[in-house]
């Protein structure tokens, strides 16, 4: 048992670090996903595409890097350290593994290269209104009409669909199936197909990150179905297992704690730096300790995976604790802002509604970020669902 990286791993880390330092686009600031343009989202992706580093987890034959689990860990740590805007998960991490695992050769050839290049932007069509964490309760129907499906229904929480070229959708192809999990198919849809309407959902932070997607008599070629008809739930579950990796967000939260420490050093309380206040300092310490516990729990999980244990229900711990820590970070940041947590400047400067934010730089975003991050304990299987999973799969209750 030891904590050291091997010499090779250290060399790899140095290479990665140097590459990021030289190539990461300087102007790609993160301010909240919905404030970014499509180009800003894709800037780093396109640089990585040239380097061949977009999709480290893919098999090498499709464009993966062939890195070990530890190398991939180092890669995400190093990116997090500069708050890099990574390739979006919907294409690279979600639909692509389904395509290269279950898709036809034609599908692989058609879709994977453009996911790698960033040419085609993907969105998810899983969730439906009222379904919440019960993803198998799919009401959107796909009815066969010759060599097309005719699709009708409504999807929701389609993240960044306003930019998307393609979407992967779960549709019910057999309404008579005896279980909700049966009779679902996994279909790829060109978002420019007539009959698709994407309507913004504005969230409580005022942002536009998610959408409702309405499908009315949308005609999709049958060849766009991945795998077998009615077997979509199998692919969907496979995808969800992939979605969970990296969900702990340790490296990003570490950066967040650093940032919190730094801003709490400039904020004052009774004329002294806020960070010297025992109560506030203690809260940061607690957060950092919880984060260390999460970090080493993730490392233990990684070590298990390296030995061939798949990412099992243990990853639910990472989801629960990771999101609790992310939420706590935004909570403490808002607290640090004090009175300057109140002013609201969303949309500046594009919409011209307000001249210039007020208070310290980080403050105007502090409340919206706190509000926004409440989503993390709801999405990706709510934290209650994660506890149900552990209870059932690990404790056997």
């Amino acid at each position: 048992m030891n904590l050291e990286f091997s010499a090779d791993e250290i060399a790899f880390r140095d290479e990665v670090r140097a590459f990021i330092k030289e190539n990461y686009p300087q102007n790609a600031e993160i301010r909240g996903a919905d404030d970014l343009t499509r180009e800003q989202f894709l800037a780093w992706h396109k640089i990585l595409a040239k380097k061949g580093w977009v999709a480290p987890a893919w098999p090498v034959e499709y464009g993966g890097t062939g890195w070990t689990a530890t190398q991939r860990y180092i890669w995400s740590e190093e990116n997090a350290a500069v708050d890099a805007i990574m390739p979006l998960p919907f294409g690279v991490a979600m639909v692509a593994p389904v395509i290269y695992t279950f898709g036809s050769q034609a599908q692989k050839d058609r879709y994977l290269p453009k996911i790698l290049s960033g040419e085609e932007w993907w969105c998810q069509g899983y969730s439906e209104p009222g379904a919440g964490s019960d993803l198998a309760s799919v009401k959107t129907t796909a009815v066969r009409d010759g060599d097309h499906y005719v699709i009708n229904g409504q999807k929701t929480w389609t993240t960044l669909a306003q930019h998307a070229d393609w979407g992967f959708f779960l549709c019910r192809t057999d309404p008579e199936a005896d279980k909700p999990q049966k009779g679902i198919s996994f279909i790829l849809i060109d978002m420019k197909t007539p009959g698709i309407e994407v309507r913004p959902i504005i969230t409580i932070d005022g942002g536009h990150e998610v959408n409702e997607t309405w499908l009315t008599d949308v005609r999709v070629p049958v060849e766009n179905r991945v795998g077998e008809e009615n077997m979509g739930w199998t692919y969907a579950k496979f995808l969800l297992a992939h979605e969970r990796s990296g969900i702990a967000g340790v490296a990003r939260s570490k950066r967040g704690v650093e940032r919190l420490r730094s801003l709490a050093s400039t904020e004052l309380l009774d004329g002294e730096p806020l960070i010297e206040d025992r109560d506030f300092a203690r809260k940061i310490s607690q957060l950092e300790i919880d984060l260390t516990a999460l970090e080493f729990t993730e490392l233990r999980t990684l070590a298990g995976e390296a030995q061939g244990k798949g990412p099992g229900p243990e990853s639910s711990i990472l989801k629960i604790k990771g999101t609790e820590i992310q939420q706590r970070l935004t909570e403490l940041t808002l607290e640090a802002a004090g009175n300057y947590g109140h002013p609201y400047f969303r949309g500046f400067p594009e919409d011209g509604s307000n001249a210039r934010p007020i208070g310290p730089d980080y403050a105007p975003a502090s409340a919206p970020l706190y509000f926004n991050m409440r989503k993390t304990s709801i999405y990706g299987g709510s934290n209650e669902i994660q506890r149900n999973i552990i209870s059932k799969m690990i404790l056997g209750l």
Partner: protein
Amino acid sequence: MDFNFTEEQSMIRDSLARLIREKYDFDTRRAALSSELGRDAAMWAQFAELGLLMAPFSEEDGGLGGNAIDAMVVMEEFGKGLVTEPFIPSVVCGGGFLRSAGTASQKEHHLGGIMSGEQIFAFAYAEPRGRYNLADLETSAKSDGSGYVLNGHKAVVIGAPWATHFIVTARTSGGQRDAGGVSVFIVEKDAKGVSTRDYPTVDGRRASEVYFENVSVPAEHLIGEADNGLPLVEQIADEAVAALCAEACGVMGVAHKMTVEYSRQRKQFGTPIGKFQVLQHRMVDMFMEHEQSVSMTYMATLKLGESEIERKKAASAAKVKIGQAGRFVGQEAIQIHGGMGMTEELAVGHYFKRLTMIDAELGNVDHHMKRYTALSAGDVSVAAE
């Protein structure tokens, strides 16, 4: 010992509740908040008509003879309807300073206006680097013989865009955080040298940065004693805290009720989520937090008239409890609503946001916990702060 409301108080509650229900529904409110003015000024006129704005004033002062309990009743209903009208800044704070320490002439010039709704006061106490310490003042007021000259910058003055007058705290002597040397002034918004930068707040209200540049304030605009204004400021701040707690109770109660209701209707895996024991117990905890918050609000309101130390401890204890309860109730209301709770479109998110920001107003949990602890230890310097 008696926890009943008077007939007048019950009447205020009922008519205000009816008015809000009929004239301030969620969509009307939203439209008003996003209008340029950021409010529906007609509501204020109707509140005045109902007598709300005169409720907490003595008959001698031209009011209805009520007290802080009337303000509590009003603010709880405001909380239920997420009303953003400036009752606390104008009636509780502006009115409070005048009632407690105003000269006959000051009362004559302003009390009628506050009660009719024609004058709106805002309480300009916070400063960019002062956080929640009411004595931490960089704003200065220098005596120039006939009056004072004000210079400084007040931060996040709630309701300032709608105000006609400010209550301003400024340092007339002493060091930046000294208990002595604080004075309180009435400043007209249109006085020369006053400027504002207006903006919305994250919970739908309006506020301003207020700048004073060599603003001449006549001596008769000083409220209370020069240099010894801090005890008065603390008293009014405690009254505002009690009113804010009452608002939080209203907000929490509705957030809880909405959540219970939603959990009854929303089905997952074929079952109403309100049947899941984990969510049931969490809603029970929300219920208990709300009940205890109501208890603490009564306590703090009833103790406003007691000794200075009792009043301060009560206000701080209540604000701590409400801050903690509000955080829990707000977060869980969103969590149990799931994705829907995250949308602008549903009311519950707005209740959550208001609860969040109430903790960040007039001192958060840590601030009041520290104040309470210091008062319990009998630390005189903090007690006086």
